[in-house]
Every structure is written in C-alpha cells, then in structure tokens.
C-alpha cells in the first residue's frame, strides 16, 4: 500500500527537519562540553560552519581505498534518512507505515554500521581498521539489549509496529507497567551506547585511534559523515523518545498537531542531551576490553523486563 500525500509530506518534513537540526545537536554537545571544561568553547552554530567549510575543501582519498570507502558517507546518510522517514517522532504513528517496523529499524541501523566499519577496513589505515573492528564489536554487544527491550515492548503492545507501541505507551495501555519501565531503561542504555559518546566512544577514540573510521576522510566526505553521525545521534534519541516517552507527540496529521509534536520533541531532546552532556564529560573512556561487562548489565535489565512481562508485574 502506497502512503498517501499527507503521510509523504510528514515524512519529508520530519526527515528534513531532523537533518537540518542535526548540526545543532552536535553543536549543543560541544557547548556543554566546553561548559564542563570551564572554557569558552565554540558557539552553538559552530558545526554548521564546520560543515560549510569542509564542503569547500579538497577531497583526498587514500591510495589503497576502493569504492566502499568513497560511497560510504552517501550510503550512511541515505540509510539514516530512510530511518528518519519511518520512526514515529513528531507523531504517534510512523509517517510511512511500512518503514515503522522495529525489526526493520534495527537492521537499518546495522546496515549503516556495516558500511561504516567496511570503509574503515577499506581505507588501509591500521587505526581505521581497529576502529572498524571496535565499531562492529560494540554493535554486537549492544544489539541484544536493544532487541530484547524492544521485543518486550512489542509483546506488551502486541505488535512490532512502532506506532502501535508508542500509542500503547502514550495511552497507558500496558499489561505490565514494571516491564515497560525496565524495557525503557534497558533501551535507554542501548541508545546511549549508540550515541558514541564517552565512555563508549571506543570506535572514534581520539587519543587512542585518531577517530577510527573517520581518520582518512577529508573535505565534503568528512562533512557528510560528521553530519550523518550527528543525524544518527538525533535519530536514536528520537527513537527512544518516540517509543518510550511519546507524550506530546501528535495523534493526527494536522499541521498544528505536527508542529506541537516537533516542539515537544525538541524540548525532550534538549533535556536528554543536557543529561548526556553532563554524563559523558564526567567520566573517562572505558577500557575497550571491559565494555562487555557494561553491556551485560544492559542485557540483564532487558531480561528482567521480559521476566516482569511474563509474571505481569
């Protein structure tokens, strides 16, 4: 079934708005960081300026790189934009219904990660290669948490459709409130790791790996990639907010409703990124080989959510 015009318009609006706001999100993180460092730091709009500047620069490819390396920023950006049209963020229902399935979302994120890692290996740089293998390892480690917590939510709502889950939570139609809260917590942990922030920014660790898979990128590719990573951070937070904190999202497609939903999302995102900003600047990077210990805790909470669901607490 093809989506009708209003839904297409909403999908286009949501994807464009998130894309436009992404550098603001990363810029806000930089402002927070500077505040935590007691330094003046860059302005809120610095990442827009960075992207414009990089777009004008020359592109340099490593001699050993192939087409994967060159195509990766485009591919990742495209995949993320597809996700942006499917996740229910401004509204309770997904803008494009077929894209709003949580199994599909999970694998679209995995696809983006796959290309990011592949390009690291393709670049021929040993730092990028190690960063790529870390990226995949982190993916393998957080996926169980995300999957399990989402499946608990799906079981609670009786559907893997993200719109149905969001609606069920928004209306409080849950068989087990305890399970929903725990699943939300586990999912929040998974989302935090997905953000790629300290202490879990292993793949891009500046001091350790010189930014991992990003090492060899330059010019417009780097701009696109930075933009895409900022969009990814916005999207995963939107994913979390859309599913587990859908309050304020629009139940219909009216223009007022959608704008109010967008405003509500902006406020929620502001609070979440402020919390993330404090957390990520108050800790050291976790040693990469200790990461599984942390991710097992996430899996544990998600499993507990499942148990709560079974006993119906």
């Amino acid at each position: 079934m093809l989506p009708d015009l209003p839904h297409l318009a909403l999908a286009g609006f949501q994807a464009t708005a998130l894309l436009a706001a992404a550098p603001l999100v990363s810029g806000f993180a930089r402002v927070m960081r500077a505040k935590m460092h007691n330094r003046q730091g860059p302005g809120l709009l610095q990442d827009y300026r960075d992207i414009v500047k990089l777009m004008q620069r020359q592109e340099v490819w490593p001699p050993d790189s192939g087409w994967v390396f060159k195509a990766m920023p485009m591919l990742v950006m495209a995949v993320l934009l597809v996700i942006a049209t499917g996740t229910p963020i401004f509204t309770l229902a997904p803008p494009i219904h077929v894209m709003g399935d949580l199994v599909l979302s999970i694998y679209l994120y995995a696809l983006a990660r796959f290309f990011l890692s592949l390009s690291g290996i393709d670049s021929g740089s040993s730092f990028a290669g190690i960063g790529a293998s870390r990226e995949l390892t982190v993916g393998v480690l957080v996926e169980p948490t995300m999957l399990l917590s989402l499946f608990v939510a799906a079981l609670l709502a009786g559907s893997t459709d993200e719109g149905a889950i969001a609606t069920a939570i928004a209306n409080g139609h849950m068989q087990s409130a305890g399970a929903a809260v725990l699943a939300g917590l586990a999912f929040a942990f998974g989302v935090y790791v997905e953000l790629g922030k300290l202490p879990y920014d292993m793949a891009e660790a500046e001091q350790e790996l010189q930014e991992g898979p990003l090492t060899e990128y330059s010019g417009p590719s780097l701009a696109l990639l930075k933009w895409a990573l900022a969009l990814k951070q916005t999207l995963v937070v939107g994913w979390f907010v859309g599913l587990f904190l859908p309050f304020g999202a629009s139940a219909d497609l009216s223009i007022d409703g959608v704008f109010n939903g967008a405003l509500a999302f902006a406020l929620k995102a502001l609070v979440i990124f402020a919390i993330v900003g404090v957390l990520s600047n108050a800790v050291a990077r976790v040693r990469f080989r200790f990461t599984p210990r942390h991710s097992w805790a996430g899996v544990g909470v998600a499993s507990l959510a499942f148990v709560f669901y079974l006993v119906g607490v």
Partner: protein
Amino acid sequence: MNAHTPLRIGSSYVAALRAKLPHAVLEERWQTDRQATITVKLEALPEAVRTLYYVHDGWFSTMAGNDERGLNGTYGLYYVLSMGGAEKCHMVIHAQVPEDKPEFPAVTPLVPAAVWYEREVRDMFGLEPVGLPDARRLVLPDDWPDGLYPLRKDSMDYRFRPAPTTDAENYPFINDAKQETTVVPLGPLHVTSDEPGHFRLFVDGEDIIDADYRMFYVHRGMEKLAETRMGYHDVTFLADRVCGICGYAHSVAYANSVENALGIVVPERGQAIRSILLETERLHSHLLNLGLACHFVGFDSGFMQFFRVREKTMMLAEMLTGHRKTYSMNLIGGVRRDILAEQKLTTLKTLGELRCEVRRLVDILLSTPNIGGRVTNVGRLDPKVARDHSPVGPVLRGSGFRRDTRADHPFAGYLSGATPINVQTGCDVLSRTLVRVSEVFDSMAIIENLLNDTPAGPILTEDFTYTPYKFALGFTEAPRGEDIHWSMLGDNQKLYRWRCRASTYNNWPVLRHMLRGNTVSDAPLIVASIDPCYSCTDRVTVVDVKKSTTKTVAYKEMERYCRERTSSPLK
C-alpha cells in the same frame, strides 16, 4: 672545597675495585668529596662498571665520550654511576680509547642500561663498542653520511649540514613477536604527542606484542654548539632551552657541574632560591602530567581543570623569575634575582590556594568512574627490568625503588633538610601517577620551608677563576628524574666538552617492556606515564631497544676480545 675536608665518601668502592681488578685501576681523581673519577685499563672497563653496578648497588647515570686527542692523544669514555649503597656518591669509570684503534669493549652485555649511551658514542665519536648487539644508529638520521662523526673536534663546523645520502627510510624496527602482527605506527607526528617520536606497535588484534621506537627527529646539536661558540655563562641560558618544561633543572645541573669542577661555593641564599625554583618547576610539570593523564583516558574535563589550576604555578614562576618557565635565572656561582619579602608573601598565599585546589581535583580524579580501571595494572614496569636499565624519577619510584637525587646526592637547597621520597609499589601507571601527586604536595611544603628559613646574604659569588681542563658532574632531580651534566672546561673561555643528559633519556629504553602485553588503546597513556620529553632526549641523536634478553655476540667471545684486543667479533 675538598681542600679543607678531604672526606672522600666512596673510597671503599675504589678499594673494592682495586681488590677485584688488581692492576687495572690506573688512577683516581677526586672532583669533590662525593665524586671520584677512576681511570681503568680499557679491557677492564666492562667488569669495572658491572662490579659497581651490580655488586655495590650502583645505578647508571650517564656516559660521556670526549675527544681528548688534543690533550693526551686518546678518546675518553666516562661511565657515571650513582651509588645507592651505604656511601652515596658518584663514581666515574674512565677509560682511554687510543686514536689509532677507535674501539672499546661494550659494557651493554653486562649492564643493559648502557645501551643507548654506547650507540650514541658510536654515532657521535665513531668509537665502536665491540660486543654491542644493536648495530643501528641512535642519534644520527638515516640520511647522514657514514664516517662523519659530529662531536670529534676535527670533523665539522657546527654550521655544516652534510647533504643527505639517501631518501629512503632505512631504520629497521625490531619486532620479537612469534606470531603474525599488524604494524600500528604512532608518529613521528601523532595527535597525542606534541613532539616527534616514532613508535611502531606490533599488534595482534588489540594486543601489543612488541614495540620499537625511534627518537631524535629534532636533534639540535646543542652540545656541539656549546663547545664551539658559546662562553661558559652563555651555556647556562642554552641549558634552560634544553627543555620547554623542565629547563631550569638543566641550567642548575650545568652550573652545578662547573661549580663542582672549580670548587666554587655558592652562597646559601642562592642555593635556597635554586631549590625554590626547582620545586616551582616540579609543580607545574607534575600538574601538566596529571592533566595529560586525564586527557589520555578520555577524561578531558579533568584535563582542563588541572590546566586551570596549573596556571597559578605558571604565574608564580613568572612573579619569581620574570618568566613563565623559570628561565634565565642561573649564573655560574649563583642566581640573578633575589626573592623579595613581598614576593615571599604572595608565594605563600598562592601555595595555600593551590594546595586546596589540587587536593580537590585529585579527589575528583581518583573518584571518577573508570579511572581506576584505566590505570591499574596498565604499563607494568617490572622491578627487575627497572634495576637493569636504570630509569629515573617517578618511573623508578613507581616501581618501588627509593631513589631521588635530592635525597641521595643533596645539592643546592636540599643540603639542609631531609627530602621526603615518595614510593609506590604497584609498578603501573597508577603508581607513577600517585608518586607525582604526592610530590606535588611535597614540593609545596619544601618551598614553604625554604621560604620561611631562607638565610640572608648574597645570592651570587663571582670570586673564582676558570682553570682549563677541570671537569666534574652536576646533577639535579628534575620533575622527570635525575638530570646529569658532565662538563670539562676549555682554555678559550669555552667548554671543552659538555655532556647533557636529560632524565627521559634513561626512561625511554624501559618503555618497550612497559608496552608489551597491553592494548593499543593504552599505548598513549603508557607513553605519557613516563612523562616523556622528546626534545630533551633529542639534544643529540638516536634510539634503541632490544637489550635485557639478547646477547647476539656471545659473552665468551667478548671476554676473549677484552683480553686479547684482536680480531673484533664485529668485523
């Protein structure tokens, strides 16, 4: 000063050497009460150094080569040992290498700590250490012409830049790994080091199996410069510039070496001021390293906060010396500026504020989640490896050895009181960091004590004359460990030879052992935990590793060569 009090602390070592190696000791000369130069026969050199090092608890401080052909027709080798036993003193084993046969039996197979020194003396003087397994250059670049030895008096003008002989990098990095490894190059330019040094990590997955490195990319030829165009007093200012962080320690060491050689007694107030400034330098250097430790584990908030607090120490330095880096304060015979009463009060007040702020920051740092996991048991320096390679400063004290030049060989303002030595036995990055933390607080206490009982009087003496060809050692405990200088005066208002050894020079060779078995992500942190100072080390040239376990030339062969001095095993 030994004219009045010929104490000669350390004479038991000389007696022991004479007993151990009958007829090998040719001459003993005392530069100060606690400094003796013992000339031995060339073939007895390795055994003499080994005896003092392992039997009498000596530690390898430095080795100076010297082109003395104009004086006595030979090249001089001066192996300096800092004696840590009952009689704390410096013993210098001197051997003469004949001009027509520029080779000597290497000490490295017996005392691994000598390896960099012997490679350097081969580069700079063309003296071949027979039996030294590592045939690579240390200081000279790959494209330097063969047979041009910069520090020989007749080799070249200091302004001469020979044309490069090759474009290819031909320095072989050593990898002892048994399995297949990936090469991860760190450097020569790398985001985590502000100075050039090239590390090759040989890794399997994320694990470092082996590592090798090369320094001396920024060799500045300072020793040659000092010998050929600078006067005695100019060199104190040149010595400041050896390091951008701990330069003052170098100029104290240099001034100290000339003062020791000529028997100059520096006025007590001058001595105290030197110590106050050395401790100020230690404060800002250690706070820098603590900040960097935060940075390397990804805790940039800590980094910025430590640098905010460190700024106070820099302002303190500026107030006391007129320069943020405590530069240009020394002259031979004392210091150039007095500390006024008002400055004393401001210093005491600043120290009070600093103490609170540093205490708070250190508490925050140690209670930050993850920090413990990042630094505990990372970069272990085994005490046995440390004993064999003579590292210095917090690197050594973090492995449980109680050694600190300020306490072992008191100089300047440390002569009066007992200096506390901070030791940690964890052998890891955490231990080295904790040693630095304690030293920050000790430094504040030392400055306060010195300021409160600074003796009155002059700060400088000019009551001395230069005597050609006198030589002696000068030493300080810089933030990174012992700095030691060996100076010989010339007959033309210049130095005949200046050998300046920065503390990090002794710490590099153990780094390989510290890197093994850790992961790539820990490498920058481990390198930072020795608080390396690239350009200090690089004042002359070259690099190596591959000691403690390897003996490429059989010891028997070397021993035979020592006895017979014929058919060198390296030819």
